[in-house]
């Protein structure tokens, strides 16, 4: 079972929910797909076991074979190639690594070399196997790192929790497209409900079963709760705003290890998710 935890904005508590949920399971694999700013390993903080590079193929041109036909330049819809002073210039960061230029070159003058864009780190913390995707600063898209993170899942892994990036862009779509269930984490504000609406529209588009977890609730006045009720989104948990939980989290601690109420809450949340997915 693969569960993605997502939200329309940063700071709602995706990592809070995902890491504490992971710790509440008997065994779990946790994928940190928030590759621009992964921080799940600060909570699930086992020692680093391994780190592997993630690379993308980038075209290079063998100038002795290139006859300047410019078919590659014309083919590239991302405009990653330019033909200047009788030679092709490749713009690595614009390239989407589709390989099309190599295919259309009639002279076989294009070959590919790997360019590192990030890493995947592996750790084990108690019951949880932690995989962290890290995109190098200045790189534009982490989707390939997310694809490689999903390759880490083995058929025998019964529970996988995916900590998705914030928002609803390509990296989020890649983080949810292969999951069985989505948990939408939302804050009790108008801004929070707007962001909830964005991810809600996304999970509907992907036909994913989903439910909400309200975080940092301050009582009855909660626009995110109103949105859930109006749109028939089941609320699996309503986590009250608590200085204690905030303090524990700020110290890099998992609340389920220190606070009994939180422990019960997350256990209950996990049970509900299991039931939901089985239906």
């Amino acid at each position, binding site marked *: 079972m693969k569960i993605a935890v997502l939200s329309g904005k940063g700071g709602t508590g995706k990592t809070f929910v995902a890491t504490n949920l992971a710790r509440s399971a008997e065994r779990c694999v946790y994928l940190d797909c928030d590759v621009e700013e992964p921080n799940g390993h600060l909570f699930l903080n086992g020692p680093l076991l391994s780190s592997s590079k993630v690379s993308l193929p980038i075209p290079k041109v063998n100038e002795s074979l290139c006859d300047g036909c410019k078919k590659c*330049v014309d083919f*590239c*819809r*991302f*405009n*990653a*190639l*330019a*033909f*200047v*002073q009788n030679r092709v*210039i490749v*713009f690595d*960061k*614009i390239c989407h690594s589709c390989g099309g230029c190599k295919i259309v070159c009639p002279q076989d003058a294009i070959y590919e070399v790997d360019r590192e864009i990030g890493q995947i780190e592996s750790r084990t913390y108690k019951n949880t196997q932690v995989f962290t995707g890290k995109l190098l600063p200045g790189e*534009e*898209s982490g989707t390939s790192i997310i694809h490689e993170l999903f390759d880490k899942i083995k058929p025998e892994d019964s529970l996988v929790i995916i900590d998705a990036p914030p928002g609803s*862009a*390509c990296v989020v779509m890649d983080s949810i497209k292969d999951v069985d269930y989505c948990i939408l984490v939302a804050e009790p504000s108008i801004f929070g409900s707007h962001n909830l609406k964005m991810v809600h529209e996304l999970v509907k588009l992907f036909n994913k079963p989903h439910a909400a977890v309200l975080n940092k609730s301050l009582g009855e006045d909660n626009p995110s709760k109103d949105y859930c009720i109006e749109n028939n989104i089941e609320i699996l948990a309503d986590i009250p705003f608590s200085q204690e939980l905030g303090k524990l989290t700020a110290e890099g601690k998992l609340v389920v290890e220190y606070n009994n109420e939180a422990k019960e809450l997350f256990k209950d949340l996990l049970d509900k998710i299991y039931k939901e997915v089985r239906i």
Partner: protein
Amino acid sequence: MIIGIPADKEDKNSPVSGSFGRAPFYFIYNDETNEVEFAVNDAAKAQGGAGVKAASLIVEKKVDTIITPQLGENASMVIKAANIKMYQSKEGSLMDNVLYLKDGKLEQLGNIHEGFHKS
């Protein structure tokens, strides 16, 4: 000398466009023959890599000097590789800027911005 300037309108008395890569036209002026051309910039509506494509058009048109308010990183790589001179535009029309250049009143372009790329 063939001069290229980003333009919003096909009118040599219109102002210089604020963007290089996404300008709808380029005013191309040959100062030996006084020939004037407005080249349509297909890159203006490109999803990404507009600077590269636009600069390639400038190269294709055999422009050797550009006058622009600013230039992105990727476009500048193409422009530099083609040994095209870059000057900073001043307030005024396209034709005014051609005259400023001839009078030596324009400075070489120093600030290359990182572009406004979207992934």
